[in-house]
Each structure stands twice: as structure tokens, then as C-alpha cells.
């Protein structure tokens, strides 16, 4: 069975996860936003995707050091090229996975 303590933990986690996802969607969609905010939000996706991606490619989370000689980073270079040339999400994912599988074997 599920204990009351465990339920309290996941309900608390669920609430603090849901609120930041929910508040902007219900409040910002009802208002007209100032133009500087719209411009700023327009740059957020490129910035946030890069801020998630680059540390995952070049830094070793265990040792907290930057290392460019990692399969994650090396494979990212052809994967970027394929994404730019084909503009195909599915194709990029498949080729990226194949290259990473190979890199793990041979690097």
C-alpha cells in the first residue's frame, strides 16, 4: 500500500511543479503584454534550449569539468549539420542516435 507520508511528498511535489507551469499560462494569455516582454520572451526558447543543451554536451556532471573529447559533444557536430541541412526532427533524432551508438563503441 501507499503510505500517507509518501502521498504527502508527491502531492507537495506535484503542486510546486504544477504552479510554475500553470500561472503564466492562465495569467499572461489574458493580458496584452508590453512589447519589451514579448521581445524578451521571443529570445527565451533559443536561450533556454542552448542553456540546457550545452552543459549536457561538454560538461562532466560527476567531476564538474569541461571536456570536449566526449562522444556527446563530438556526435553533436554532425547532428547539428544534419539538423541545419535537413530541417527534419525525425531524421536528426535517428541519425544522432545511430552516430552516438557508433561513437560509444569506437571512441
Amino acid at each position: 500500500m501507499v503510505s500517507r507520508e509518501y502521498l504527502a511528498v508527491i502531492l507537495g511535489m506535484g503542486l510546486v511543479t504544477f504552479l510554475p507551469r500553470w500561472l503564466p499560462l492562465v495569467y499572461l494569455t489574458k493580458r496584452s503584454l508590453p512589447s519589451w516582454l514579448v521581445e524578451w520572451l521571443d529570445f527565451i526558447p533559443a536561450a533556454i534550449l542552448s542553456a540546457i543543451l550545452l552543459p549536457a554536451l561538454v560538461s562532466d556532471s560527476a567531476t564538474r569539468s569541461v571536456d570536449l573529447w566526449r562522444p556527446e559533444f563530438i556526435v553533436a557536430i554532425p547532428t547539428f549539420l544534419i539538423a541545419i541541412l535537413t530541417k527534419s526532427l525525425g531524421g536528426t533524432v535517428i541519425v544522432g542516435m545511430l552516430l552516438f551508438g557508433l561513437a560509444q563503441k569506437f571512441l
Partner: protein
Amino acid sequence: MSPMKSKKDSGSGHRKTTLSRGMTAAWPICLGYMPIGLAFGVLAQKAGLSPLEIGLMSVIVFAGSAQFIAVSMLAAGASLFSIVATTFMVNLRHFLMSSALAVFLKNADRKKLSFFAYGVTDESFAVNLSKFRDSRWDLNSALITNYTANLTWIITTVLGGVGGQFIPAHAFGLDYALIAMFICLLVFQIRGFIYVITAVTAGIFAVFLSMLIPGNSYIVIASMTAAAIGVVLKKKGR
């Protein structure tokens, strides 16, 4: 579609395309969630959680990295407050993502927005945002995408908890599915030179910050700063 078809037919045809469009957009996310979901299930089971408890967490929380952290904290006997506070910090970045998505959802149905908010993850955010920009995308398709990804996460985490140690989660380069997806979605977001500068600044700043400060708050700090630099550069260019 043939113009001879009745209104009723085209209505159900529309529903079908919404469904298949949403599910098609979700497949790279699902592919990436599978190994992570299985890995999470295995880890949670080792930490003493039952498949039911794992499934409940995936339904109620639905946040990959926070769930991993919570399980290790539970195993270490951490308090309710510290687990919830950590979850809040780890998931605060979704506040930014929902704000960026809100620009495309002006005056949308409140109830649908709430259901949509539940499914905002790094991955669904990235996919939906590039789709919304493509214009032929609507909230219904986005909801299908989110819940397809959500269902994949719930099923694979429970499967991992039941017998994940027998499933080869690291085969076929699956570990790279989400990274490759992010690479392509980042490319989709680059719509000019200022976007390149913004992305490069955010990435390098994030790498530096991730070395200096614990946790993942580097994502929020780096992207907010880089986006502000983008706005300034755009003003100067005018």
C-alpha cells in the same frame, strides 16, 4: 480532402488529423523518454518504491529530473519540506517556458490551458513552441502531444519498476534521442544572427554557471540573461 464530403465527415476528419498530428509530433519525445523512464523505474524500485508508488509519482508530478532527485532524497531519508523545496527549485524553469508559450495562446480556453500546463516539460515545450510558430498548430494538437508524452513516461517508469533490469535501456544510442531532439529544435529557433548570439551566450554562460553553483538554476539564470542581451542587441540594431 474531397470537397464533396459532408460537413460531418470533414469534422471527424479534422479530429483525426488533430490526433495524428499531435501524436506524430510526440514520437521523438517518447523515444527519448523510454530509456529515461525505464532507468527511473529501476532506480525507484531499488530505493524501495513499489510500481504503484512509482506510477503515482509519475502521474502527480510528471517531471523527469525532479523525480530522480526526489527518489535519491527519499532513499537518504530527507524531510518532506526539503524534497518539495528542491522540486520547486528544479522545476522553476518551467515558469519561463510557460510564459514563452503563453504568447501563442492568447485568450485560449482556461480549462484547456490548465490541462496543457500539467504537461509542460522541457521536451514538450520545445516541440510545441516550434510547432506554434509554424502556425498550423493549435492547442488541441499540443494537448495530444503532451499527453502522449505523459503516457509514455508513466508506462515506462512503471515498467522499469516492475522489471526494468531486464530491459536494455542503453541500447541503440537511445541515450542520445533527447539530445538530438534538442539540437534540432534549437536549430528551428534560430531565426537570425541575434538568435545565434543569444543561444551561444546562454550556452557558454550556462556551462560556466553549472560549474559554480549547485543544482540546475544555471538554466534559468543563463537563459534570462542571454535573452535580455538579445533584446538589447535588437534595440541597437534598429
